[in-house]
């Protein structure tokens, strides 16, 4: 991915295994969020390809799809580094909006909905149940009818994950979900993510700076620096990789200076 003269991601290639949690780590400006933007269709990569093995639709070339089609057809959902909820809408409405496409199809260009036909009422009931079950699972039930924008930051993050889950993802891309969470909330998040990948069969891509989270739950870690992959592998291996240590701590320089 290039922006004018700046190459943000260069010769990056990795695979995120199905039903596993793949973490992408790296110093600030390494190109992690740019990578997400490429995957979810907000940027079109200048070169290369991104292939998703969709369980139903076969392999999809994500870089050829627009952002809303990445979410709708490839079922790749994402959250944002600075949460992007619909602040004036209630938490429940946020969850329902995430199911827009299914509901819109059921409403038959809104006609079935305008006349409150059975088929639309059923679809709406289903959507509501889906939303409520996720709210319950994320312990958000009590906030259902409250405007999302007034909730505390940590809760908003959970709402955003719940909203993405309501859209029925195959691949879930989380951009720093643990930022701003206290240790307890962050531990809860760990459990949730593990549950999602193990039980709900969702593949997770995770950008995270909190090493407690990354090391505990990742199956696979990819390390970026200046847009290039510098290491990849299981958490224990990556932690000891000299390139990673250098990128994060600059240890060699440090030792050289002392010597």
């Amino acid at each position, binding site marked *: 991915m290039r922006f004018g003269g700046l190459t943000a991601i260069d010769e990056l290639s990795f695979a995120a295994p199905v039903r596993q949690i793949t973490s992408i780590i790296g110093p600030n400006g390494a190109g992690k969020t740019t990578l997400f933007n490429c995957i979810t269709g907000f940027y079109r990569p200048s070169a290369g390809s991104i292939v998703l093995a969709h369980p139903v639709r076969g392999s999809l070339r994500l870089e050829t799809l627009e952002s809303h089609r990445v979410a709708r057809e490839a079922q790749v959902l994402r959250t944002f580094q600075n949460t992007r909820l619909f602040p004036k809408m209630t938490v429940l409405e946020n969850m329902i909006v995430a199911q*827009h496409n299914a509901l819109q199809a059921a409403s038959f260009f809104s006609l079935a*909905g305008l006349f409150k036909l059975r088929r639309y009422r059923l679809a709406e009931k289903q959507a509501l149940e889906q939303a409520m079950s996720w709210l319950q699972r994320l312990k958000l039930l009590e906030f259902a009818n409250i405007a999302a924008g007034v909730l505390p930051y940590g809760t908003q993050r959970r709402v955003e994950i719940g909203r993405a889950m309501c859209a029925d993802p195959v691949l879930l891309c989380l951009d720093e979900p643990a930022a701003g969470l206290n240790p307890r909330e962050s531990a809860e998040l760990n459990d949730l993510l593990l549950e999602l990948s193990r039980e709900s069969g969702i593949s997770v891509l995770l950008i995270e700076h909190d090493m407690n989270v990354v090391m505990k739950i990742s199956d696979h870690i990819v390390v970026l620096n200046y847009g290039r992959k510098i290491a990849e592998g299981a958490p224990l291996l990556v932690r000891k990789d000299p390139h990673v240590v250098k990128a994060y701590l600059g240890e060699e320089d440090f030792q050289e200076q002392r010597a």
Partner: protein
Amino acid sequence: MRAIFPRQALSIAERLRDAGWIAFVALVLGVPMIGLTTVDAGNKLVVHTRLPLLMEFVAACFLGRLALRFSLDKFAQRKIERQAQEARRTVQIPARSTLPLIKWLGWWLLGAALVLPLMFSGNRYVVDTATTVLIYVMLGWGLNVVVGLAGLLDLGYVAFYAVGAYAYALLSTQFGWGFWQSLPVAGGLAAFFGLALGWPTLRLRGDYLAIVTLGFGEIIRIILVNWTELSGGPNGIASIPRPSFFGLPFQAPSDDGVQTFAGFFGLEYSPGQRVIFLYYLILLLALLTNLFVTRMRRLPVGRAWEAIREDEIACKALGINVVTVKLSAFALGAMLGGLAGVFFAARQGFISPESFVFSESATILAIVVLGGMGSQLGVVLASLVLVLLPEIGRDFAEYRMLLFGMAMILIMVWRPGGLLVRREPAIMAPAPMQARP
């Protein structure tokens, strides 16, 4: 509750005494100001009394005070309760989200709108003004879709109003179409123009969108002024047929055997009948608009409109096709404006580009903003304020617009978010699931 909040526990006797004091003050003040008046008899002034008017004034003060005190107490009580609840750190989930007062106000206004022409059947001015209010209410509800719900700032809304009006004017004068036949065609045409404006401006938001829509409104007006062959230019189009009551025209009985409304129902003909009919017609159109918009708001499209207003990028990330959602908002908003335009042309019988200047767009936008973006009832209140204030202000002659401007500033100081800021959720969590441990 009563023991904790003694202020709200006023007995009926106390309330009556309180209102009685106010009535007494009103009486004392009213005797010189209202009760006595001077009449020029010949060449000297004679003092006359106006006791009935004085009594009406005192009674109004008495009842008004009762109502005011009651609602103020209710507000205060609710505020205290809310604070108490917050202090207990529980999250309050209202069983019914609507404030009863506001809901009441809506029904009350509807009732008043229904009986108004019956009460003022002899007073053409009142019914005419009410009709104007309703046109603006309908326009406000239409623009509310674009600005209030979808958050797309549209400064050229009057263009769609013009498209609807000219569509009916041309269809009826050139092709002899009736009002009801033209209505869907004109609405569709206006929706098409909405798409024509929406398509090139998809990427624009906020100020940039406002400028383009402003230009669009002017383009339509200038085309109407200059394309003389089509629109009659500045002279406009005259003698547009008035709508009839299921084929029965409103006109004086004539000898040529045409069945008229008055003749069919065995009534005596009066020109007021048409005025009242037009009033009920726009009331019907406006209510249908309201029903349509409130229903749409509870549908996926409506929620997507609001979601786009809130965060377009998040919408894309959730798989919502922003293009179609925006275009549907533009098209439906434009259609409603076009329908109002058809009615306007049918009511006036004459239209010219003069009626579709920018200040009209600004007024409609002001109605939406003053009412509180996205609030249906707010639009009604704001239309009442914006149409009636200049009417009331007629007595103030050259200070009329000054008064108008001051009122608008006051509203914005008092309620910066508009008259009704509260947003109704489009979907509520079902009650049993709200139960908390």
